């Protein structure tokens, strides 16, 4: 483990929470997308978290292994005034629920805060170590 290991571990946690917040922001921004019925709808994105495990030792934080894309089937709606509407007046919209995105956002935010709190703890401890012998 590197010097000041806790700082990099908490940093990886903050990064992961930030990635999650970014995907949620993207999902909410694209909630009202409209696509043609012969095209795929926007699929809600979610990060895939993986622990940086070290066997027999304290782990080294978290990594975002990738971004998982949700169902692109979406919902077919009747909206004849849309420029994307087909001959029957149908369009495809994303199946993204605002409520679940908001719940995820609260979780991601709490995650972020918990990691910054751990970061502050580690900083205080390391600062006290720097007073040794003074």
């Amino acid at each position, binding site marked *: 483990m590197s010097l000041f*290991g806790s700082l990099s571990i908490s940093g990886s946690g903050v990064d992961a929470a930030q990635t999650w917040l970014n995907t949620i922001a993207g999902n909410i921004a694209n909630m009202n997308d409209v696509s043609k019925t012969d095209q795929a709808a926007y699929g809600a994105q979610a990060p895939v978290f993986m622990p940086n495990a070290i066997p027999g030792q304290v782990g080294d934080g978290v990594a975002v292994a990738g971004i998982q894309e949700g169902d692109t089937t979406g919902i077919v709606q009747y909206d004849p005034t849309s420029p994307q509407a087909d001959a029957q007046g149908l369009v495809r919209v994303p199946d993204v629920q605002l409520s679940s995105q908001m719940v995820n956002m609260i979780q991601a935010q709490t995650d972020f805060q918990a990691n910054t709190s751990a970061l502050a703890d580690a900083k205080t*401890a390391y600062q006290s170590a720097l007073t040794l012998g003074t």
Partner: protein
Amino acid sequence: MDGIVSALQFAVNAVAQQQQATANNLANTDTPGFTGQDVSFEQSLQQAIDAPNGGTATVTVSADPAPPASNGNNVDTATQLVNGQQETLQYQTMVEMLNAQFRLVAGSTGGSFT
């Protein structure tokens, strides 16, 4: 005197590892299937101190026995945050103890006690 310094030195390093485990558990609060880690050293250190001919203390990393939630993760954020605070205070206390020992040495060798 030497025993105190080496015991404190060991404990400071061990608490730093506890803090790393707490940071790691908090970083993985939303990782599916993640099992939290516990770091313990207190019993081992006590045994080493009590041993008549001096013993060797070890730091043990073990899995958190808490039951997992529906996503297979068993980290409780609140517990970890409390642990983080506790470890920081413990760390600071031990650093202060080490400094007190160093001041004693400095004072008794002609330097300043403060």
